[in-house]
Structure formats: C-alpha cells, structure tokens
C-alpha cells in the first residue's frame, strides 16, 4: 500500500513536470513583454492591439521610462526594452544587447504668450538656450524681437517649464541645446535630468505635466512631444534649423530630419536626430530604440519580438501617422533587418 501511494505521487509529479515542460517548449509564443520609453508608449500599445487581433500574440508593454526599460532588459525581466536615449556601443557590448530605432518623432517648443497664435512666432537654437539658461528673461528681449520682426511681444517674464522626472524627452532636448550653444554645453550639458539654471524654473511630471503648466502660466515656455502640443492645443513656435531656414513642426519636416541622417554608417544605429542638415529638417527630432539580448535564453520569445517589430514596420505605418509619429523609412528597415540577421542568435 505504501508502495502504491509513492507510485501514484511519483506519477503525478512526472505528469505535471511533463505538462509544464510541454507548454514551455511549445514553439507558439502567445505573449511578449516589454518596458521603457513613455514616448513610444502610445504607438506600441496601438500596434499591440492591432497585432493581437491579427495574430493572437499579446504584447504587454509597460511605460516605465527609458532608464528603467534599459535596467529591465539588462536584468532580463522583459523580452525587449525601449529607450529614447540610444545605449552606447560599449554598454551594448558589455551586456550582450543590440538595438535599433523603432519609431521617430518630433519635439516642439510651446509657449504661452497672450496673443501668440499657432506658429506665428519663431525661435532659434541659441536664443532658446539663452532662455533656458536664464540669460533672456523677458519675452520682449531684443534677441526675440529680432527673430520676430513686426510682431508685438509683451513685456512679460519668461517662466521655464521642464520635466521633473528623468526623461528621454529631456535628453533629446538638451542634446540639441548642447549642439547649438557651447555655453549650454559647458554649463549644463545633456542628460535625462539636468541642472536648470533659469530663476523660478518649474518642473512638471511627464509630457502632460509640462503641457499643463505651460497652458496655465502666462509667459511659460516648455518642450513637449508634438502629439501632446496638439492634444492640449498649445501654441508652438517655428524654429530656425541648422541650414538657417525657418521651419514649422510638421510630419514632413520631422521625416526630413530622419531621412538626412546617416543610419548606415553609424554603429548600433546611434543616431541622435537633433540639428540634422537639410533645408526642411526640423531641428528637435528624436527616435526611440528597441533593445534585445543578442544570445537570448529564450530565443522563441525574442523571435516573437522581432516578428512584432517587423510587422509594425510593414503594417503599422498608418497607425504611427495617426498618432503623429514618423514611421521607419523603408531604407532604414532594410538596415534593421540586416542587423537582426547579423546580431541576434535565434537558434
């Protein structure tokens, strides 16, 4: 009798183990997980919904911030990470990771100046840097009046609004300011959190925090992703780009910045799309990068991740445009697929 009991128990254990290993080894992956950039969250979740309908595969993406996304993919707690700030080649090598751009988008300068209509005012990079450093403190400063001849600018204090949380949006913005202003580069520098120098500067949480402060405070200036400026109906400014031309923030101009970039010859796609050449390039453009392990412990999961992003490049373009992102150009898609074949070991 004792013997029998043991036998039955053994059989049950074996059966459960077999069942588990079966479900783990089954080639069908029906769920992948990712974490990171909040910039890419709206488009990834929109793609995820369409992808699930089409293929049945569920994509679970947590918008925890770029840095946290990198931490999670290094710790291998998710199948892919997403960051607005590309990882350095050394950091990728060290952790056995590879990255590629998954979506691009533009940032705009929003300002709350009474009487300022959409796209009526212009700002240049160096002047913007001076404002953000607190060197220009009034809206009727001569530097601003020179950029906007014939416009009536009020005698109003400027309030600088920035992100209070560490963010890729700030990294792209300060990268741009560092490129156009040597003084900014020396005094502040670039990063996800920087030391804002202007007196009375204000930190809002997330794009929505910056948008809400800028919308409410007279004389405020801030930087947000294009979609947030549209949603909140905030007046944004035109900019002078690196070619010295006045450009408006439009999808075409964001895409122009992306197309002028040299993706092919930059290792690990580490292109920061700010201050790109070209007459119609919008100067503050950025991209979000997807990151996976090169030699994954779970190749089937990573294959499913690549499938998802391949699908997003082939079929997700209209969704991207609807949400005011720039889809990956076809030429870059070829480079990405070549990079996958070369770097990611799926067998």
């Amino acid at each position, binding site marked *: 009798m004792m013997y029998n009991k043991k036998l039955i128990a053994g059989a049950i254990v074996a059966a459960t183990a077999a069942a588990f290993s079966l479900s783990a080894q089954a080639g069908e992956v029906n769920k992948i997980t990712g974490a990171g950039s909040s910039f890419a969250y709206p488009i990834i979740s929109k793609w995820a919904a369409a992808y699930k309908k089409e293929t049945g595969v569920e994509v679970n993406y947590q918008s925890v911030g770029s*840095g946290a996304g990198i931490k999670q993919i290094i710790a291998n707690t998710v199948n892919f990470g997403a960051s607005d700030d590309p990882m350095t080649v050394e950091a990728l090598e060290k952790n056995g990771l590879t990255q590629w751009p998954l979506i691009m988008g533009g940032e705009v300068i929003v300002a709350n100046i009474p009487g300022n209509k959409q796209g009526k005012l212009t700002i240049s990079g160096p002047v913007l840097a001076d404002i953000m450093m607190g060197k220009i403190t009034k809206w009727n400063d001569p530097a601003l009046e020179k950029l906007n001849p014939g416009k009536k600018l009020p005698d109003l204090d400027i309030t600088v609004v920035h992100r209070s949380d560490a963010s890729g949006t700030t990294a792209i913005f300060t990268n741009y300011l560092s490129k156009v202003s040597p003084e900014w580069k020396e005094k502040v520098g670039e990063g996800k*959190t920087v030391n804002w120098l202007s007196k009375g500067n204000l*930190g809002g*949480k997330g794009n929505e925090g910056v948008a809400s*402060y800028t919308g409410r405070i007279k004389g405020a200036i801030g930087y947000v992703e294009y979609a947030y400026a549209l949603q909140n109906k905030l007046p944004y400014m035109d900019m002078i780009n690196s070619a010295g031309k006045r450009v408006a923030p439009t999808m075409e101009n964001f895409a122009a910045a992306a197309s002028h970039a040299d993706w092919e010859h930059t290792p690990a796609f580490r292109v920061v799309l700010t201050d790109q050449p070209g007459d119609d390039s919008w100067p503050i453009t950025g991209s979000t990068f997807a990151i996976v392990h090169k030699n994954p412990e779970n190749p089937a999961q990573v294959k499913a991740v690549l499938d998802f992003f391949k699908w997003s490049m082939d079929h997700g373009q209209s969704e991207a445009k609807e949400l005011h992102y720039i889809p990956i150009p076809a030429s870059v898609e070829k480079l990405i697929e070549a990079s996958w074949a070369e770097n990611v070991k799926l067998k």
Partner: protein
Amino acid sequence: MATPEEQMALHRQLHAKSTGVLLDKLFKGSAFSFAALVLIVLFGMMLMLLKEAWPTFAHFGFGFFISSDWDVVNNKYGALIPIVGTLVTSLIAVVIGVPVSFGIAIFITMMAPAWMKRPVGIAIELLAAVPSIIYGMWGLFYFAPWFANYIQPFMTNTLGELPILGQFFQGPPIGVSIFTAGVVLAIMIIPFIASVMRDMFEIVPTTLKESAFAMGSTTWEVIWKVVLPYTKSGVVGGVILGLGRAMGETMAVAFVVGNSLELNTGLFYPGATIASTMANEFNEASGLHMSSLIALGLILFVITFLVLSIAKWFLMMLERAHEGTGT
C-alpha cells in the same frame, strides 16, 4: 478518598490550567517576537540606507549636507536644497495646521451643540482617509491657480513690503511653490492633528472642567489652565504625528512644489523636498546618483528621528517643570 467522578473533574481542571499556562507562554512569546520584529525592521532599514548611501558620503563627505549643487550631468550632488525644502514646507504646514486643528478640536469637544459633534467628527476622519494624490491633484488644478491669482498678489503687496520678512513673500505668480506645498500639507495634516486633539480633550474628566467653571473661570481659562496641561503629552504627540506625515509626504508635494532644485529666499518660488526629489528621479537613477537619492532618504529618516527625540525631550522638560511648581 475522592470518587472517580471527583477525580476526573480535578484532572480536567488541572489540565485546563496547564493548557492555560501554555497558551499564556505562547502568547507572550509571539507578542515578544512581534515587538522584536519592529526593532529588526527599523535596524535593517537603517543598515540598508547606510550601506547604499555610503558611496555618497565617502565621495562628498560633509559637503553633501551643505552643498546646494544637484547636477546629474556632472555627477555632483548636494542635499541642501531638498533638506531646506522639506523643513520649510513642514514648518509652514505646522504653523498653519496646529492652530486650526486646535480650534477644531476645542470647538467639537467644548462648544459645539450636540447635534454637530458627530457629523463634524466623522467629516474629519473622512478627510484623514483621502488619498494624498487627490490632495495633490486638487492642489495643482484648483488651489494653485486660485492662490496665484488672488492670495499671492495680496500677500506680496502687504507682507512682501515688510522690512526683513518681505523677502520671504516674493516670487513669480505661478501658484506652484514651496508655500503652496506648505498650505496643501497643512490641509492634509489638519485631520490627523485635530482628531488626536479631540480624542485627548474628550478624556479630560468633566468634574475637572466643571469645577474650574464653577470657580468662575472663562472658557479660555479652562482650556489654557485645565484642558491643555491635562492633555499636553497627547497634544504634542498629535502635532508630531502631523509633522512626520508632512515631512514624508511625497505625491501631493511633487504635484504642487514645482520640482525645481534651486535655492531662493522667496517662498513663492518653486522648490523641492527630499521625498519629491526621490520620487522624481528614482526610476532613471544609477550609480552615484542613486546613492545620493538614498542618502537623501537616510537624511529624512534622521530628521524625523531627531524631531521625535526633541519632542520627547520637550515633554520630559514640561513634566519636570510641572512637578517642580505643582504639589
């Protein structure tokens, strides 16, 4: 010789007694281990904070406490601005919150008509249960604009004109500032302090109060000379509870304080507190940055501990003074 029935009864009694003793021991043991758990958790937390914060202290030394530099790009950190922000917002909260709570508690226990006592009491307890993020959102969307448009200009034009105090009431009219954070914190801690005070005032024996009234004391004299001396330790405890909450509050403060790491004398400038800085920067921090954030946490821990100790000491002094002059 007892009959078998009697023997059985005796046996049962003894048995019951021994299980009682066993239960007692068990109870004592578990109560002890629960109490020990508190010490272990506290100690473990201290240890963890110290260990993680150590790189910062080793790197910056004492300078960490007095430097106002918080520059993530250049990896330079100083805790002065968050420390000052925490102390100033909490101070504003207590300065506003304590008198108001005192008034509420006195009104409920001594002056309110019977039909008002319960509803007001329940309302206070409900306020204490409102999640802090609600206070934060209310503060950001409703209180801050209203304050910026109506109260702040008035304060700057009156208090701001005073000779030395004036410099504290300056700042841009944006409504999110150290001062706003203090006011929102005051509103958040009032229910805590008020309900502790009310409970305290209610245990003052009626005979004591009635005797004082009978001897011709005014209401104010009864409060000041009978109720307060009788309840002072509880009242101070309530204030400390509120202060502790104000210093550690994160979400509501992060909404209304402005999250700016710069030092200004004007209370209407945006600022930052220890808790709000930690919450803002935690998810993207690593290395020395992370260590500095944890060092901030350790400092908050120590400040809270110091406040508690000072309060205890103050109470002890009060007791001693009372013993000296009294019986």
